[in-house]
């Protein structure tokens, strides 16, 4: 089974702090994604990566950056956390060679910015 793990289930940070959210997958997937999930808004794509050191902006990249130094790890960085970044963050991965490309999700990190 594919396993996608995220470093924290719950995180509380203060405004202005630098925040790192880590995601690791163990199935050699090329593609990795970061979403945020907010009530009434569904999932919105922040950034994605289809290879090591490659990244592309999603629909809402402002205020975020990402890092993919190794194939299995994709980090989401909040350079200076703000209260409007309080949200649930979901990581996902998929195998690019597989045409149907099911995305496999991690358990999520619920971030509260005070």
């Amino acid at each position: 089974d594919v396993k996608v793990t995220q470093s924290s289930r719950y995180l509380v940070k203060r405004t202005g702090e630098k925040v790192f959210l880590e995601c690791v997958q163990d199935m050699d997937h090329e593609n990795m994604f970061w979403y945020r999930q907010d009530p009434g808004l569904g999932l919105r794509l922040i950034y994605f990566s289809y290879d090591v050191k490659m990244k592309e902006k999603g629909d809402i990249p402002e205020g975020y950056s990402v890092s993919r130094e190794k194939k299995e790890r994709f980090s989401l960085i909040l350079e200076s956390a703000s209260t409007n970044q309080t949200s649930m963050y979901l990581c996902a991965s998929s195998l690019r060679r597989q045409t149907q490309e099911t995305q496999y999700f991690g358990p999520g990190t619920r971030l509260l910015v005070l």
Partner: protein
Amino acid sequence: AQTVTQSQPEMSVQEAETVTLSCTYDTSESDYYLFWYKQPPSRQMILVIRQEAYKQQNATENRFSVNFQKAAKSFSLKISDSQLGDAAMYFCAYRIFTGANSKLTFGKGITLSVRP
């Protein structure tokens, strides 16, 4: 731009009954994939079912089936013999057929409750 619309924020079904969750989408592409994902409370999101647009036959996975109407751009999920474990948030999603940029576009989701 592609959009996915789930117009009903909440639905409720009696255990053992059948429920249909609606989804419409907008695209100019002719080939694409459609998905239903399930997110149980405090648990990971998982794939329920997927449909390739070029296939006329509706996808089925055990108690879950879809009604795919390509011309109407409609993709509804039918859950038969509903169980308490079906209570979750359900997301409809769309992806273009080809390309390295395999982005999914999600709807806003619908919360399904199952009454015992």
